[in-house]
């Protein structure tokens, strides 16, 4: 113990410097974790989180029995998995393609242009969608009418919601996502390429046998992270894209928690729904990570 005290004394300035950040972490990250007990209580404004009465699993029970329960699960999982299926391979594909061409103006322009959308805010992104998909001024509608089809209100059709969400995400994030794979590809030992060439490998064979194996570790880590965030579906974009017409496919757990909890002021019930969501998410992350470790040897930790 005295060794520890000595070490701390010697670098007391470092401990002083860390203090504000640590206070922040404990107050804004750990205190809300304790506050999660509200999900097991009947929150009462006057008594606060600590004084309110315990009700056990009451709120969880009423969530599972809620008529919206399966719809919320279905939408949350559906949008997430669709997003991973399309959005995850997209940056890999772009990086592999960019890696095939020689460094020049064209390559640089493709990179510059494709990662610019990453910086567009969610509000603007959704406005762009709404403007372009609107039945009167939208470009998509104009294309429709140009083909002689009837224009429709795309944002109001439940069946279109998932695709609009997922593909606009691909549009916005693919270029940025490709950076990391490109960097991994640039780290490949050049001798491997030379050996492949001398052996007479075609470009496709080179990609399959040299490029792909070399990005496996990064890919696994990112995939684990993605799957581990399945339940944490981005509230921001979905909430903005919602309208009364598309709610049957656009209501997900996070938007539901916001509406019931913060707008409806039903704190305890909505905290229970949120906790239910976080726990499933954590379990998924641990499972996928363990699986990845077993199968490929790479994992998050």
């Amino acid at each position, binding site marked *: 113990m005295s060794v*520890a005290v000595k*070490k701390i004394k010697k*670098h007391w300035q*470092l401990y*002083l410097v*860390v203090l504000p*950040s*640590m206070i*922040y*972490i404990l*107050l804004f990250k*750990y*205190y*809300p*974790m*304790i*506050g*999660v007990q*509200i999900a097991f209580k009947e929150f009462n404004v006057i008594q*606060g*989180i600590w004084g309110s009465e315990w009700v056990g699993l009451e709120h969880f029970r009423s969530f599972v029995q809620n008529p919206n329960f399966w719809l919320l699960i279905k939408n949350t999982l559906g949008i997430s998995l669709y997003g991973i299926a399309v959005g995850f391979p997209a940056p890999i594909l*772009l990086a592999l*393609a*960019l890696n*095939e061409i020689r460094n020049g103006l064209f390559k640089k322009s*493709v990179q*510059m*242009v494709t990662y610019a*959308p990453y*910086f*567009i*805010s*969610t*509000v*603007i992104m*959704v*406005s762009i969608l*709404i*403007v372009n998909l609107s039945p009167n*001024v939208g*470009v998509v509608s*104009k294309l429709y009418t140009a083909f002689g089809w009837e224009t429709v209100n795309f944002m109001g059709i439940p069946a279109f919601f998932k695709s609009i969400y997922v593909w606009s995400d691909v549009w916005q994030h*693919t270029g940025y996502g490709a950076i*990391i794979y490109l*960097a991994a590809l640039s780290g490949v030992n050049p001798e491997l390429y*030379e050996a492949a*060439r001398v052996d007479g490998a075609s*470009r496709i064979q080179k990609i399959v046998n040299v490029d792909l194996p070399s990005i496996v570790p*990064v890919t696994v*880590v990112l995939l684990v992270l993605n799957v581990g965030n399945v339940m944490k579906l981005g509230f*921001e974009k979905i909430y903005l894209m919602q309208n009364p017409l598309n709610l049957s496919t656009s209501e997900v757990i996070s938007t539901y*928690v*916001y509406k019931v*909890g*913060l707008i409806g002021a039903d*704190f305890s019930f909505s*905290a229970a729904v*949120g*906790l239910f969501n976080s726990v499933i998410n*954590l379990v998924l992350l641990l499972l996928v990570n363990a699986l990845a470790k077993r199968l490929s040897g790479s994992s998050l930790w």
Partner: protein
Amino acid sequence: MLSVRGIRESAGDRLFLLGVYTFLVFVLLAVLLPLLHIVSSSFSSPQAVVSGKVWILPVEFSLEGYKAVFDSKSIWSGFANSVYYTVVGTFVNVLLTVLIAYPLSRRTFYGRNLIMMLLVFTMLFDGGIIPFYLLVKDLGMIDSRWALIVPGALAVFQVIIAKTFFQSSLPEEIWEAASLDGCSDIRFMTSVVLPLSKPILAVMTLMYAVGHWNAYFDALIFLKSQELFPLQIVLRNILILNTVDPTMLSNADQMLAQTGLKDLLKYSLIVVASLPILMIYPFVQKHFVKGVMIGSLKG
């Protein structure tokens, strides 16, 4: 690779390469054209926009959309608020991140593993939005500028990126040399660590600044007063909800509500709101790739 240039590309390879170029041209256009359409629309006349004449180039060039944007009181106040939140918020973010990331990068910092574990755990699990909201409420920050600065003062992910950077670019030996000369830890941070960390500081500043500039969720749940609203909330009201608060209206806004200018205004607004970030990004871009790499591969 140069040494084997002599081997000629086979017909199959050249065909494949052609396919690669076609794919990339398609990707380039798919990203670029929607952006061009918006920029061009914003420079067109209201009539041309409403009647759908604008495709890729501006039609009947006009600056009316921009005039409407700059005449609007709510947009100006949102813009000013966003600048404030971004500047102050980013400063606090970068300060707190460096203050914790640097000590964590030192092997001799007793307890660093415990602190790292505390940090990483917050990335796996959180209390959720309700306890967080109640905490901010109990601290008396609801409907104040603090609410957009303090609750998000630090991002754990950025701490890990910065810590990795410090570890790989500032070996313990530099510190040992400095401490022999009688340099204290704080002195070392300000006069050695900071000057040597410009790339990571630039990346961190950009990432945090983008976050603040683009954020609307905190403002949505914590703010009630119109005069505190950041630009994104103002944009949401105009662009998505199609509503403008009557108390914030100027004459220009009232005119807008009646004329076809409203559609045009949306395009100009999209351009104006995206411009500040897009303007800084080329300057930080070269550091950016490095920053993303450091954080995600070794983190």
